[in-house]
């Protein structure tokens, strides 16, 4: 009998407590959905799951990663940018500005509440090891003489992470970029396959993706579009060293929610993501796969995605690929 009475007392206490606590309790008090804007098995899936595992451990709530990579991620972005603003449906934010410019989607930087960026990988320029092209300077010279003389793979869809910074660099160099022969690929592996089979001349993608082919002596990286040389690849020069133009860019991944989320809630989520980011398991998991662990807090990330939108607009207008003129 005592046990039942105890139970009742506890239950009553719980009710009182629940009523007494402020309306918005600690986030998260129930499972959170994280939308990855890519299919299972790729880099986005991997990094999102790595982050989710730490968030789960720290908060004691499940973080379910849902893959919605259909339509290049448009479906995933649409799902979470139109979800409830309660912090329980969040998603991956990666280069997104091209979708609107290509007429594929309606969302802009205004459609999201950025929380934090946890990864950035600079674009790099790769050629076949037996190619006549030996450096980024060679590429610039060749394209200046005849902009359409090189077949350049975007290492994924074009007007995206890898080719936007590259074209941006060529714009600075005064190349007639509207004539550049950019060729989309089904991801970087497909682009590299084309490179090695002799189908194309240049592939744009991140450096770790070429590790195996570089060690096989088939691929050579001639430049990386980052501010400094990468720790893991000290022999690859930056674009600035090669050309004198400080153009950087590449892909990046962050966490965001639908537009108009409560700033206090965003701060809570940012703190949780930051804790996960700083964990040793997350850091080593990123390092093992060669992903750059780069942190931008809410304020910086918000400024950064505006900048991303501007660069994308400028390049796509120069390329003549933008459907919606600015």
């Amino acid at each position, binding site marked *: 009998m005592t046990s039942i009475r105890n139970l009742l007392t506890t239950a009553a206490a719980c009710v009182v407590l629940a009523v007494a606590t402020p309306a918005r309790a600690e986030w998260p008090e129930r499972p959170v959905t994280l939308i990855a804007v890519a299919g299972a*098995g790729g880099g986005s899936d991997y990094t999102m799951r790595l982050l989710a595992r730490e968030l789960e451990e720290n908060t004691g709530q499940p973080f379910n990663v849902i893959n919605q990579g*259909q339509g290049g991620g448009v479906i995933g972005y649409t799902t979470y940018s139109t979800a409830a603003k309660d912090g329980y449906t969040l998603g991956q934010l990666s280069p997104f500005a091209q979708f609107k410019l290509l007429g594929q989607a309606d969302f802009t930087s205004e459609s999201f509440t950025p929380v934090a960026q946890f990864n950035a990988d600079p674009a790099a320029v790769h050629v076949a090891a037996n190619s006549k092209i030996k450096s980024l300077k060679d590429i610039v010279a060749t394209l200046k003489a005849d902009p359409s003389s090189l077949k350049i793979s975007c290492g994924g869809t074009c007007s995206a992470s890898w080719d936007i910074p590259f074209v941006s660099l060529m714009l600075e160099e005064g190349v007639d970029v509207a004539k550049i022969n950019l060729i989309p690929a089904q991801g970087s592996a497909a682009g590299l396959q084309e490179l090695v089979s002799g189908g194309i001349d240049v592939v744009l993608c991140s450096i770790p993706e070429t590790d195996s082919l570089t060690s096989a002596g088939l691929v050579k990286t001639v430049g990386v579009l980052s501010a400094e040389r990468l720790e893991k690849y000290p022999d690859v020069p930056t674009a600035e060293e090669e050309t004198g133009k400080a153009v950087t860019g590449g892909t990046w991944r962050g966490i965001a929610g639908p537009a108009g989320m409560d700033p206090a809630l965003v701060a809570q989520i940012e703190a949780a993501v930051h804790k996960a980011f700083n964990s040793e398991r997350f850091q080593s998991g990123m390092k093992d796969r060669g992903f750059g662990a780069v942190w931008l807090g809410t304020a910086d990330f918000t400024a950064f995605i505006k900048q991303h939108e501007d660069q994308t607009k400028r390049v796509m207008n120069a390329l003549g690929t933008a459907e919606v003129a600015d």
Partner: protein
Amino acid sequence: MVNPFTILQQINDPHLLLVIFASAVYGLAIGAIPGLTALMATALLVPFIIFMEPLPAIASIITASAMAIFAGDIPGAMLRMPGTPASAAYTDDAHDLTLKGKTVMALGAGLFASAAGGLLSAIVLTLAAPSLARIALAFSSVEYFWLGVLGLSCATFVAGPSLLKGLASLFLGLSLATIGMDPVSGIPRFTFGSTNLMGGLGLIPVLIGLFAISELLRNANAEFHGRANTHRMGPIFSTISERLWPHKVGVLRGGLIGTVVGALPGAGSDIAAWISYAIARRGSRIGRNDDEKGAVERIMSASAANNASLGGAYIPATVFGIPGDAITAIVISVMFIKGINPGPTLFLNNPETIYTIFAIFFIANLLIVPLGILCIRGFGLILKLPTNYVSPVILMFCILGAFSVENTLFAVGLIALFGVLGYLMEANGVPLAPAILGLILGPLIEQTFMTTMLKSQGDLTIFFERPIAAAIGVFTIVVWLAAIGMKAFGGAAKREMHSHV
């Protein structure tokens, strides 16, 4: 050179063997459920194996995917619902045997061919992975384009009695494949402003709809007499072993085709099964016949090919880190996490590990035989239950399967839509298989064609400039002309005979 004893020692680890066994059972269960694919079996494993040692982690993927590809044959033969897209090519042949009371024959043939095909690819993998990988890397978009067009010619072999209806089904599949963002420029097509259609129609929901849902509709609508026969299953081993020997050449051919197609990045087990099926149908003396022996020959050739392609996909994956299909994409990512970085240096610096991984292929494919027999028996027991209990459960798994692949309710709507479409097509004698073929190959052909045109800036001669491309191109054109010519001529000859009679 590698010391075989080190490999045996690494394998003779109770923990590793337990993981292999558990993954085998899991793979069989996933593959046998219509709509749950080998890729899904692999993707669902990742959260578990991320905490394992490197060898058990990779062994788990190898075993589960091999089992799932085989197990896809079981609902294909018994229910006419291919468990995975890789079984779609020969579902009709296998189900016809079941209707004649020869379930044991159909599934036994698939079982032994799967194991043999898998073993064959494991042998090739062990002996020649690095040199074969170099050949696979010589393929550019031009060669893939021709391969895709060659694959399309398979439609004429699975078209059934009417070439026109077969082509109608193929073109339906090809036009459905144009829905969504175009694979090269990303322009949305036929999406009518719907975000759900941006990514196109998912292959799995369409497959589930056309095959599984339409079959459920048919069963609900008609008195089903064929099923009674399926319940009497004789002993699998003794019935099969002496009757399969005549098909050894077909299995060998299927195994080799599967290994080669699997080694080409981007062409997976489904395409391997189709090509092998087509070659058995047209190119072999036994496979050409419409009798039981012909069906067994085709089933065995295609089953050997889809299991062999799994091994083939590891060739570019382990040597160059280039995934041959979506499953090996996951494997590569797991290998990186575990510190076994794929690449030629892996074969030089760490041969024990890589050859132990290949050895696991042998174990997994040998396990297919005993576990496969148990699984066939188990599935047979389920079918003894009355249809009105089994059907709702299958429907539930179909819905689950469609939802879990796409993570959208839209996919569930798709299976209903394509279920009705499939039912109507069947009722009018339009075969379903060519539509699936069109849906699989359409995006590949379109994308490689557009990429090639962008590369040559519109010059069509590029399609015959490279030697391999020119060879496959000419071969493809000859096959197409021959296929259409024979079908047209054969049809005319038959009509003439009729008029004489």
